[in-house]
């Protein structure tokens, strides 16, 4: 008659629901950044070897440097996107913990209500005990009830002590959450700092590839001024990022 098999069905349904969880967008951005970094790394490592075998005015020199520069830009854009998402998530998490802290503080303010209730219950039982003691003098058969009521007084006291411990735990939890908010804010600031540093480094990488390209042009111009490849302006950085 008792079909506990339903428990298994419900457990299986809960597990199936958990498997439907959408993929983490931050992980996707992280993978994209790693892919761009790997592409740039492969090109950058082989750049000097590739162009050392070419004549100074060979157009492939310029295109090789530009290709690495573009890969560098794409990598930096991907890293920026990853850090923007990481910072946004850190901010959301900080806000979520702040809300938890606020609710915990509200609980702490409610502690007095529990104490008042416990005192009221204790007083109620004391009153019953006084009244019952009078009755026990007249009717000894009520002594069992008296014992039971004394047991209830003790149980209520025990619960009062439990309640006090719970209030202490609530206060400790509030302290932990406050520390957590501070730690999350600090982490969020650190991630924002890392994002800014990444942006600054990106500017330096662009400047380096521009200088490297200028050197290649100079090498061509002094080797063969007439055949110097016409310098082509590099496209704007934003457009490269979208390639």
């Amino acid at each position: 008659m008792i079909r506990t098999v339903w428990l298994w069905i419900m457990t299986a349904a809960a597990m199936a629901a958990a498997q439907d969880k959408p993929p983490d967008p931050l992980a996707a951005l992280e993978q994209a950044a790693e892919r761009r970094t790997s592409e740039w790394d492969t090109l950058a490592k082989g750049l000097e070897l590739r162009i050392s075998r070419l004549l100074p005015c060979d157009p492939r020199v310029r295109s090789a440097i530009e290709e690495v520069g573009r890969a560098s830009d794409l990598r930096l854009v991907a890293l920026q996107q990853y850090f923007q998402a990481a910072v946004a998530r850190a901010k959301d998490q900080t806000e979520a913990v702040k809300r938890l802290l606020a609710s915990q503080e509200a609980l702490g303010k409610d502690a007095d209500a529990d104490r008042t209730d416990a005192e009221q219950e204790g007083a109620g039982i004391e009153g019953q005990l006084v009244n019952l003691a009078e009755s026990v003098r007249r009717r000894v058969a009520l002594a069992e009830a008296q014992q039971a009521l004394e047991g209830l007084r003790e149980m209520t006291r025990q619960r009062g002590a439990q309640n006090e411990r719970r209030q202490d735990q609530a206060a400790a939890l509030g302290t932990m959450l406050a520390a957590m908010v501070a730690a999350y804010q600090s982490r969020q600031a650190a991630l924002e700092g890392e994002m800014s540093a990444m942006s600054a480094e990106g500017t330096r990488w662009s400047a380096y590839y521009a200088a490297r390209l200028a050197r290649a042009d100079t090498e061509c111009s002094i080797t063969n001024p007439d055949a110097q490849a016409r310098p082509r302006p590099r496209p704007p950085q934003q457009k490269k990022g979208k390639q």
Partner: protein
Amino acid sequence: MLAALCAFAQTPRDDYRTAYRNWRQADATLESDSGAGGAAIGERANRVAAAATQYGAARSAFLNAMAADVGQSASGLANAALAVPSPLESTKILADRVTAELATVGRDIETYASDADPGIQQLRQALERERLALGALSGAIAERDKIAGAAQDRTTAADQAHRRASDGYRDFTAALKQEAAQIDRETAAWTAYYQKLADGAQRAIEVPPPQPAPIPPSIKEEPPARAVPAPFVTPLPLLRYTGAWVYPTVNGLYHGPQPEFIDLVVHEDNGRANGTLFGRFKLAPGVSGDAELRFDFSGDFKNARNQTFALETSDGAKGTMDLIPGPAFNLLEVNFQTEARAGKIRQGNFVLVKK
């Protein structure tokens, strides 16, 4: 999560406070009057016991609701768990590459330093600009490395704070549940107390009162002492049906709605049964309605193993209840069904253990 917090803000203390007032005001002179004795005390005690049970249920429900909300906040905290950002790339490799490039460019500059050829000088200047760019890049990489290290440290610190708070939530939720369980035990003890009060008021035995014994940490109720043993009208002893029964807190057996708790009291008087069942059930996710159920029942004991009695719920629905003695002496299966009422539990089947 915010919704959970708002829901908690609405969790009412009013329910249990009203129930407490009702209980305390139900019969303020019951204990004083019990000394006079009489059958009327029994009826009055039953009424007050019902009010005490209602208060216990409301108080327990309040604490369980708080525990559920705190548990939900704790799961919200799990969502704020940190995925420590893995270092996307090694700044050391970048720094090494830039350092190597700086060395190469530096050597070229040295090579061309003493060459006065204008073209070579032009090249040397281009190399100088490249070296400057590499130097700036090297500094930027070092700066980012420092900042990334600090970010990792702070992420680790935040992760530790998260773990501590998770532990704090777990302890706090456990404390709330323990307190709710204690309330449930007290509620059962109040029922037993009022039963003893009623029995004592009706008993005519005058013996010296026993000295109050040390109070045990947990109250175990004995079946009410009876001056006269109950007559057997059933094939099994009446004690297989009568007394106080509860739904076990672990490994409970049920079919249909899952009970959270059940308190059943069955009395027998001259071959006639009466009693009360009070319980709360777990509603399926997404299902709204009244999870609590209370009904009184009565009827004659029959010469049959399974006993069936008529019941009436607190909101007037009628129905029947079967009491089926279990395989062990302290087990009793209950099967009930009532008229349909919107949002109300109307049937249940579970096994109770004797208190």
